[in-house]
């Protein structure tokens, strides 16, 4: 019933374990420096495992303290909305270097608006296009930043 909390606490322990094993793989050049590059990573790794274990202990004794799990559950969870926005960001990452800034921003805007349940595609598409082009022009022409033109290379 507290599966989420247990999983999250376990994940903290796993991250700690990863940090710790990574720290042992680092060479400890204590010879010419009193605090080698592995010292702090080891402390952080061990501390993460410790707080993760304490979190598990807390969950076993009734769940995270001062956290209203019931209220969170009552809010529900709209995974479709989550997936739509996720798709928007991941698509942006995949598209940006090929299709360019304007196209990928346009896709992200539409995915996010849809994620919030908005179906006015024509209006949203128009706003997204104008916004992306204006930002592109401001940054590339005005501030000398290099946002990729992508497929619109000849046009912009």
């Amino acid at each position: 019933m507290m599966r989420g909390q247990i999983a999250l606490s376990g994940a903290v322990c796993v991250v700690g374990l990863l940090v710790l094993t990574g720290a042992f793989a680092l060479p400890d050049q204590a010879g010419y420096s009193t605090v080698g590059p592995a010292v702090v990573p080891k402390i952080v790794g061990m501390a993460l495992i410790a707080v993760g274990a304490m979190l598990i202990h807390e969950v076993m004794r009734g769940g995270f303290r001062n956290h209203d799990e019931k209220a969170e559950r009552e809010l529900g969870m709209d995974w479709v909305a989550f997936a739509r926005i996720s798709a928007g960001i991941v698509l942006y990452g995949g598209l940006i270097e090929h299709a360019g800034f304007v196209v990928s921003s346009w896709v992200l805007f539409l995915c996010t608006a849809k994620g919030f349940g908005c179906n006015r595609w024509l209006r949203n598409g128009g706003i997204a296009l104008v916004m992306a082009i204006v930002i592109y022009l401001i940054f590339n022409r005005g501030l000398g930043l290099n946002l990729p033109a992508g497929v619109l290379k000849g046009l912009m």
Partner: protein
Amino acid sequence: MDAWHFLAQGFQVALAPNNLLWALVGAMFGTAVGVLPGIGPAVAIALLLPLTAKLDPSGALIMFAGIYYGAMFGGSTTSILLNTPGESATIVTALEGNQMAKRGRAGAALGTSAIGSFVAGTLATVLLTMLAPQVIDIAIKFGPPEYFALMMLAFTTVSAVLGESTLRGMVALLIGLAIGLVGIENQSGQARYVFGIPQLADGIEVVTIAVGLFAVGETLYVASKLNRVTETMERIRGSVFMTLDDWRRSWKPWLRGTLIGFPFGAMPAGGAEIPTFLSYATEKKLSDNADEFGKGAIEGVAGPEAANNAAATGTMVPLLTLGLPTSATAAILLVAFQQYGLQPGPLLFETNAALVWGLIASFYVGNVMLLVLNLPLIGLWVKLLAIPRPLLYAAILVLATMGVYGMRQSAFDVFLLYVIGCLGFLMRRYSFPTAPVIVGMILGPLAEEQLRRSLAISEGSPQIFFTRPLAASILALTLALLVGPWIWKQLNKKRASVPAVA
């Protein structure tokens, strides 16, 4: 050191036309991000960090500081009219201010919070002006062990003392410290946790973390959990300039709120929530209208609003004099200093006096600008709240991804942004504080450096932390703050159980 003399010189910097312009831009931008849900001062400053390459340090820092305290002014507007606290420091305002708005007193609520913010911001800046030279006189004698001890204290207060849960705060801090470890360690040149990915060798950018945790995480949370909740916006009724009676009831809470808020910010404690709750409790106790509390008492808005503004200004004391950030936004301001190769601390007051005092002087100027922006022009900002949610969050994500990608033209950063966004979602879902992540990732590498220097002085002996009285007492205080509450609870438990047995 004569503070007022330096301050006068600072005004010459702050009142230069271009710096006035940057203060105005910062104040306006800050008010806007404060009013808008889904984006806060930390994200706004992080997204604007690339501008440091184009602007001179005073202009950029004056603008960033304007965003910081501008957001404090703007945040209260949203709390009062929408009852959704824009920031955790405005929870109390959301409670009491929204009640006032529901009873047709929105104008007075907005008025008392804007004027209270101005009074508190200005008085807190006066306190900052007087306190900074004193702190510097002490700080100049600090060595690496003292700085290390102070950083441990800041870690503890930021994550453990001022939150809902010490444990979850510590988790957040350690996640931040772990993120700060990624990249090439500057002492040995050793790559840590890079996994052969070239983008990780340079370290993870604070922009990606701040924008991911706050903007992307918030967007995912609102879309998947809060989108069915419809908000009703209260209309502004009544004058924002308040009646004589409102003034009479507000002025004392403003002053008390300032006195409660400033020390919380100025001690390396950070967090503006606790002083707002304290101020609220104080006002309720002292008020002749205690029965009005919970139903829209003006004192319950005036006090906490002053407290959170004073606390925000107070965080400038440890940031400027010690280089110690105690909030997410202060941590990002520290990064802005670092972009210029500047390290806040006692030395900066000597080497860059014009810059630091110019910045402090700009707080006075900015507060006046914000008063004008938030009283006569309040109607303008309220219009921002009419932007439909889908469009607002879509635009926020477009700006967020642009800022993260544009930093070094790397698609990898966009994917990393998404991962951090999911982390931000989980942290919000399970009530983890996010500010310690940012403070941890920024302050972590600095603390490691101070630890190394300390042990270099003592030739490897950790005794140096116990034999130097100041370092030892700060570390003792840190330990007391960390385990004290727990021991206290165990003792009380025992005491409570003894009579039960007898």
